[in-house]
C-alpha cells in the first residue's frame, strides 16, 4: 500500500530555485512531490539506477510500452532494462513532455542573450544540458549518459502532420506531480525553462520538493495495473528485490 504525503511521514523538503540544478538518490519505497510554486515551471529530469548507472531512463521504451507520448498519473518511467524506475502516482498538471529534449548553451544565449557569472553572478543564464553535465559529473557520468529526458510541467503536443505545439501557461501555481521510486534512483534535475518556451525573458521558476516514505505498491496499485505491460514491468523490477 502506498502512503500519501502527510506531515508525519515527510522525510525532507527543499525549494529548488529557478535556474538551479540538483541530483540526489531516491530510495525504493520513497516518493517525491514536485510542486510548481509560482506557475509556469519546467523541470528537465533524468533518471538512473543508482547501483548500475548504465541502466537509465529510456524514452522510447517508456513510450512504446504504454502507447503514449506524454506522462501523467498511471504512467511509469521505464529503464532500458525493462524495469520501472519511477511511477507517476499523482499529477494535477495532466501532461508532462517526453519528446522535446532540453535547453543548451547555444539555445539559451540566442533566446535570452548572454548573462554569464561575470555579468550576473548567480543570476547568470543557465541551461539544462550544462546543468545536467555538472550534476552527472558528480557521479562519474558525462555526455555519453545524457539521453532523451522528461520535461516535467511542460506540454508539447503534435498534430496529424507531426508539427509540434508548445502549450503556454500549462502549469499553474500550486500544480504538482508525484513520483514514486520503485528502485534506488539517481534523480538529476534542472529547473530551467523549456527549450520551446516562447517567452523571451529568462525567468526560470522555483520548485518545492517534498520527499516521503510511501512504501512499495501492492497488487491493486494503479500504476501496476494501468496497462498489462506495466504488470510485467513491475514483475521484472521486483525480481531485483526478492
Amino acid at each position, binding site marked *: 500500500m502506498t502512503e500519501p504525503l502527510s506531515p508525519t511521514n515527510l522525510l525532507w523538503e527543499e525549494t529548488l530555485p529557478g535556474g538551479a540544478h540538483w541530483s540526489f538518490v531516491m530510495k525504493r519505497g520513497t516518493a517525491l512531490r514536485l510542486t510548481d510554486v509560482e506557475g509556469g515551471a519546467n523541470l528537465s529530469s533524468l533518471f538512473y539506477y543508482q547501483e548500475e548507472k548504465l541502466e537509465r531512463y529510456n524514452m*522510447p521504451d517508456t513510450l512504446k510500452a504504454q502507447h503514449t507520448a506524454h506522462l501523467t498519473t498511471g504512467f511509469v518511467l521505464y529503464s532500458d532494462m525493462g524495469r520501472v524506475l519511477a511511477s507517476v502516482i499523482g499529477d494535477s498538471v495532466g501532461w508532462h513532455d517526453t519528446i522535446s529534449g532540453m535547453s543548451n548553451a547555444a539555445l539559451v544565449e540566442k533566446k535570452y542573450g548572454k548573462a554569464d557569472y561575470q555579468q550576473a553572478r548567480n543570476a547568470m543564464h543557465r541551461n539544462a544540458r550544462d546543468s545536467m553535465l555538472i550534476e552527472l559529473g558528480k557521479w562519474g557520468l558525462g555526455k*555519453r549518459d545524457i539521453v*532523451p529526458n522528461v520535461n516535467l510541467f511542460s506540454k508539447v503536443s503534435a498534430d496529424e502532420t507531426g508539427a509540434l505545439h508548445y502549450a503556454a501557461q500549462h502549469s499553474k501555481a500550486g500544480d504538482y506531480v508525484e513520483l514514486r521510486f520503485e528502485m534506488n534512483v539517481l534523480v538529476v534535475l534542472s529547473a530551467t525553462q523549456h527549450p520551446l518556451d516562447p517567452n523571451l525573458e529568462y525567468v526560470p521558476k522555483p520548485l518545492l520538493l517534498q520527499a516521503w516514505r510511501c512504501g512499495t505498491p501492492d497488487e491493486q496499485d494503479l500504476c501496476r495495473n494501468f496497462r498489462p505491460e506495466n504488470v510485467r514491468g513491475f514483475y521484472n523490477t521486483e525480481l531485483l528485490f526478492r
Partner: protein
Amino acid sequence: MTIVESNLNPQHASYDCVLPAGESWLHEVKCGQVFRILDLEGNQAVDTLFYNARDPEERYSAVDTIREQGNLYLTAGTKLLSSEGNVLMTIVADTCGRHDTLGGACAAESNSVRYAIDKKYMHSCRDSFLHALGHCDCGMDKRDLTANVNFFMNVPVTPQGELTFADGISAPGKYVEMRAEMDVFVLISNCPQLNNPCNAYNPTPVQLLIWDAVAQ
C-alpha cells in the same frame, strides 16, 4: 508527405551491400558522401544510430532533431542533429515520405514488458547493436546507445498524446538517402522484430549504398 527522388545511379556507387534481416552493420560514411538505405521487400524497419566518427561522444539526438525542426517525423530536408547541435546528416531524398525517431529499438528486456515475459529470448535490435559494438574496437559500448531513427517505420502520435504502431507505409523499392555533413559512423540493426506490424511480421533484407562526393 513530400516525396523527393534521387538521380544517383546505383551502378556508380562506391559501396553496395545487402544486409539481411536480424544483422547489424557499422560503417563510416565520409563527409560529403551520400548514403542510401533501400527497402528491398517493403515494410522493413531499419534501426539506425549516427556518431561523429572523430568523437563518438557526439551522437545523434532524436529530441534535438525533433525540436529544432518542429516536427516528430523525418523526411527529405530533415537535418539529423547531434547532441552538440551540429548536423550529422541531411536527408536529401526520400520515396517513403516519413520515418520514425520516437519508437527506439526493440530489446530483449522491452520485449518482455511489451509482449510476454518469455519473449525476452527472441533476437532484438539492441542485441544487434551490442553485437556490433562488442566487435568494433572503437571504444563504444552500451553507454553509447540512445534513441535511434527507425527508417521506414510508421509510429503516429495523436494530438491527444497517444503513440500508436501502424502498418508500415513503405513498399518494395522505397528508399531514403542522406548526405554526411561530417565523417559519421552509421550503426544499423536491420530489425528482427516478429511481434508487431513495424515490419509486417516478416523481417526482410535492405540494401545499403554509398556514393563518393566526387561521383555525384
